């Protein structure tokens, strides 16, 4: 009987010691985790403040009248008498409407052209395995590494030879050269991550290569396509150097250059209108990013791990 009691006692002591050790370990882990969390939050807070300060300043300035801006009294971060006059001015200003429309047309066409070329190129490079396809896909990426600022002078000659100087069509032609390499690279990575058995199953089911692309690859690779689309959109919407070099009349101008050339007259900076124009110009990217961010991250991750 006593032997039984002894044997019961031993594991009880052992188990309480073990559970105490486990509790200490848990507490220490808990503390470490808490410190890591606080550290992360602090770093993120600095990051968020840094990145949100400029847009906040832009918003505040856009809501001020010219008189309030030039008065230079009170905090520049706060608005005393908020007004929408800058926004109303821009919305009813014909030049601004033209810039906006031109930017939208160029961007939509650039995205469409870039995506068609990129998807077809990526599918053939990733899946059709023709002679030299590996070298070619590396070459596609290398072209992305050439900075656009190096190209705009030689391209000026080509655009001039095509009689497209001061035409939005020059940008529709040129922007895909900036977007296609990277979009193709993203799509190659994404297409490569799709199991090869899917193509083979489709081939046996009776599909041709174009049907495999349209019925299998494009739906399956939609996150990658959205990521590439957002990239092409960003390239076309935010490009500054090329329109500055190739466009010079208001009827062909786009937002990025138009805002500066139209709202800065000599040494007069119309800060309220410039800031309001910047906010209005930022709206499409913000809306698109907000709706498609999840897909964008998924697409970039898949491309990165596979590529």
């Amino acid at each position: 009987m006593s032997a039984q009691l002894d044997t019961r006692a031993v594991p009880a002591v052992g188990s309480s010691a073990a559970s105490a050790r486990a509790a200490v370990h848990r507490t220490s882990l808990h503390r470490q985790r808490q410190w890591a969390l606080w550290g992360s939050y602090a770093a993120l807070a600095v990051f968020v403040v840094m990145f949100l300060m400029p847009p906040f300043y832009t918003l505040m300035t856009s809501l001020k009248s010219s008189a309030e801006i030039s008065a230079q009294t009170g905090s520049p971060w706060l608005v005393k008498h908020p007004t929408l006059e800058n926004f109303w001015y821009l919305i009813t200003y014909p030049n601004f409407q033209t810039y906006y429309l031109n930017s939208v047309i160029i961007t939509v066409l650039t995205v469409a052209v870039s995506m068609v070329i990129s998807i077809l190129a990526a599918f053939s490079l990733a899946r059709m395995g023709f002679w030299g396809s590996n070298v070619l896909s590396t070459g596609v990426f290398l072209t992305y590494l050439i900075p656009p600022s190096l190209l705009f002078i030689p391209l000026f000659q080509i655009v001039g030879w095509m009689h497209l100087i001061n035409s939005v069509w020059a940008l529709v032609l040129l922007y895909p050269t900036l977007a296609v390499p990277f979009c193709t690279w993203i799509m190659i990575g994404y297409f490569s991550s799709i199991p090869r058995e899917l193509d083979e199953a489709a081939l046996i089911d009776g599909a041709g290569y174009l049907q495999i692309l349209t019925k299998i690859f494009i739906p399956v690779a939609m996150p990658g396509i959205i990521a590439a689309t957002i990239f092409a959109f960003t390239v076309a919407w935010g490009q500054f150097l090329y329109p500055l070099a190739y466009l010079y009349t208001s009827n062909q101008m786009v937002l990025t250059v138009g805002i500066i050339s139209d709202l800065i007259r000599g040494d007069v900076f119309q800060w309220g209108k410039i800031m309001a124009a910047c906010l209005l110009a930022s709206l499409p990217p913000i809306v698109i990013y907000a709706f498609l961010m999840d897909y964008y991250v998924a697409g970039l991750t898949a491309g990165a791990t596979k590529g």
Partner: protein
Amino acid sequence: MAEVSCRRIVKEYDGGVQAVKGIDLDIADEEFVVLVGPSGCGKSTTLRMIAGLEEITGGEILIGGDVVNDVPPRDRDIAMVFQNYALYPHMSVFDNMAFGLKLRKFPKDEIKRRVDEAARILDIAPLLDRKPRALSGGQRQRVAMGRAIVRNPKVFLFDEPLSNLDAKLRVQMRTEIKKVHQTVKTTTVYVTHDQVEAMTLADRVVVMNAGHIEQVGTPQELYHNPATRFVAGFIGSPAMNFMPCRIVEAAGGGIAVHVNDQILLPVPEARAARYRPYMGKPMVFGMRPEHLFEYHEQGKPGWERVDLKVDVVEPMGMETMVHFFLGGDPICARVAPETECHPEQILPLTADMNNMHLMDGDTGKVV
């Protein structure tokens, strides 16, 4: 439905590596043939060449009497089930099964009839609206089979379809595949590395090794009359025991096998004439674990007593596997579960010499 013939087919990759070295194989209409062998033996490559997914370096493949070397996969009238299911992830089960029929412009009514019929055979009717990600492994494999069945092709090709399933589900799906074949009777070529799958499913098994065919035969033929040491070792679980031996003269004018220079086992009279020409040559003695069992006082002709020291005992419930060493070679015996044995014990066993195998030490061929 159709017969499939491979005539001296060769597959050579860049760099001169030959995966398939000129194999000949005729598969009859409605036959279920399993290609089995270790990794890298060329079985999947052979299947993919039949499917048209790999180009053929040499030889001819005929389906239904027509040479299909240059015919693309979609025009070969075949259906294939892949190891990882290869279901289209963005389509429902119905659309996955209907995809091939839609591409071939079948009328909608006919598509629905065929999909419903396949779903009934495979018991997946309630799953038709689901996406593949909402299915278990077994259900996905059923859908993959359904996709093959609806096409009503000349030939079914299975590329290790059960390898991704757990052991229990694999056994269940094995039965399902056999049942489906009994129902639709389509000529089937099935690739696996699992010899149990091969034995249970096949009308005929093709054992492949290093790019060539070792032996073709029914499961029973391969099991009882293997042509080579490779086949003898590959088919059967646990594997056959192999030991070096020599054929020697025995008392009374007979012959005996001197196994590992340690034990002398008389050869039954019926086999003596066949083995006598190999007298003195280095040979290999083979015996399956089930032909090495607990000693019986009342033996039969050809049953010889062997005493061995037990190394490891593995009780399996309905039988017990006992492992020994003889001259450095491992030996496995299958004894009745009630046989008392423990490590280090000297256990008397019966070697059923009526089921012994003798292989040429140089060529590996069974004599």
